[in-house]
């Protein structure tokens, strides 16, 4: 059965995924809006940077984040000067790494949804006296809602499923950075296959249910 240590890992994983998803929706939405609307020559560059975690080995991302957030890195110096210490091997450090790692999974669905809203809806809102921010919240967000749902689900699930980045940034500290994927690794290392099975099967079921939801959800919007 699940041990207390396993349960702690599950709780930590859910907490990490929840916090990361909320931050991603807040950070990813403006980036997605900019990418959907801009005619800047930097669009390609920014789009590529956002998509990097899709192709990079998580260890590479984890390595550079570790260096950047370490005591000699620019982020590390900054957080130390604020009296926060350094981020690696802490829960906030994991959150920062997860945000980078799952960024494309949130930005791309939201960006696609924004692009699908179309210029004409924005123009119609402007001729009806709605300013840009007003238009965004009263027209764009409701119309892009399916994109936000996809983004949140994918961002959450992808964060739950990460391993390499966690290992690089978080290490393996119970209650602090030991998430389910790391816990499974530990079980296997200790030849505790029964326990590894239990957690792995849980992850498998969770991932399947998430994808089943995304693939069977009607593509049509709620108001139709």
């Amino acid at each position, binding site marked *: 059965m699940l041990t207390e240590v396993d349960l702690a890992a599950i709780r930590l994983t859910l907490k990490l995924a929840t916090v990361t998803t909320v931050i991603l929706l807040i950070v990813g939405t403006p980036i997605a809006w900019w990418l959907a609307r801009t005619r800047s020559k930097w669009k390609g560059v920014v789009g590529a940077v956002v998509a990097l975690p899709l192709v990079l080995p998580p260890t590479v991302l984890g390595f550079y984040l570790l260096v950047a957030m370490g005591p000699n890195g620019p982020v590390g110096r900054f957080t130390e000067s604020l009296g926060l210490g350094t981020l690696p091997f802490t829960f906030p450090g994991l959150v920062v790494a997860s945000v980078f790692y799952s960024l494309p999974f949130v930005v791309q669905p939201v960006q696609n949804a924004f692009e699908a809203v179309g210029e*004409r*809806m924005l*123009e*119609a*809102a*402007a*001729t*009806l*006296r*709605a*300013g840009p921010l*007003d*238009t965004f919240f*009263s*027209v764009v967000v*409701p*119309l892009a809602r399916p994109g936000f749902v996809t983004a949140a689900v994918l961002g959450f699930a992808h964060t739950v499923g990460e391993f390499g980045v966690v290992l690089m940034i978080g290490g393996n500290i119970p209650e602090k950075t030991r998430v389910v994927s790391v816990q499974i690794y530990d079980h296997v290392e200790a030849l505790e296959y029964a326990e590894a099975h239990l957690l792995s099967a849980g992850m498998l079921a969770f991932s399947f249910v998430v994808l089943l939801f995304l693939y069977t959800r009607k593509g049509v*919007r709620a*108001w*139709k």
Partner: protein
Amino acid sequence: MEMNALSADGIRARCRVDWPGFTLDVDLDLPGRGVTALFGHSGSGKTTLLRCIAGLERGVGEVLFKGTVWQDSAHGAFLPTHKRPLGYVFQEASLFPHLSVRRNLEFGRKRVGGQHRVSLDHAVELLGIGHLLERMPGGLSGGERQRVGIARALATSPELLLMDEPLAALDLKRKAEILPYLERLHDELDIPVLYVSHSPDEVARLADHVVLMEEGRVVASGGLGETLARLDLPLAFAEDAGVVIEATVGEHDARYHLTRLDFAGGSVFVARRPEAPGSRLRCRVHARDVSLARERVEGTSITNLLPATVTEIADADTPAHVLVRLEAEGTALIARITRRSLDQLQIETGLRMWAQIKAVALLG
């Protein structure tokens, strides 16, 4: 002097837009009342001009509405669209799909401060959409959607209504369904309208003032009657060249089921109309339906004869024909006759003639 008077309570639009392969370059003073048609082929720049006035397109120049600066590039002034007191009707209704018809109508209305000059009920009644209020836009027909779009723009009590070919996306039946509503708009609301169209019929029916555009430039701008009656414009070359006459219902002839229409310079009889004597009617007389005679012709089935003076003769759309412009005491007429008739009758400017009108098209 005239220009200043016009600008103070009218619309001034000096606008330049440069795109690859297209340049819009106009300098216009438009009346601040009635319906002004921006008329021309697709690609003539009429929609771009409308979008510049709305602030949806940002050209270089100045836009003044009744003395208020909406854009002045020389001083870097640009009032964003949502701060301009205008209503805009797009070619496709562009309703918000996530809001019911009622909430679409309320969208702009609740964002307008101050008092509403057009009540929501009036807008709903004017466009006949009372039974649609709780429906979602996805379930409406094209014609219904467009009526909601027009009502939505009106519900903001705009000081200027901009309409970009509101009927172009509709089939003939739907067009016929909406045109009467547009005419009511024209008759009942005192809101100046800029109406983009490439349909001579719509223009003849709805407009008071016409701006003719070609390749990003203004070719002519003037009152509907005088502009349609000009022979030097491409309008005259169209197959359906003709004039528009504002007439008043004179009297009904019960015996023969006819109605007499009076206008400056004469009157014509048409098939019995439902309107009461004194009602105003707009009718169109095509150049091809007007023939000319030197003497008053007796023994003809054509009942509508008007004395008129030849003022201008010009080439028509084919080498076999000419266009003759005539003046009948304030009402202009155009006749399309063969060049041979012109020579045989020795028609020249200044000649008094009889115009025989074979048909009159009534525009609503």
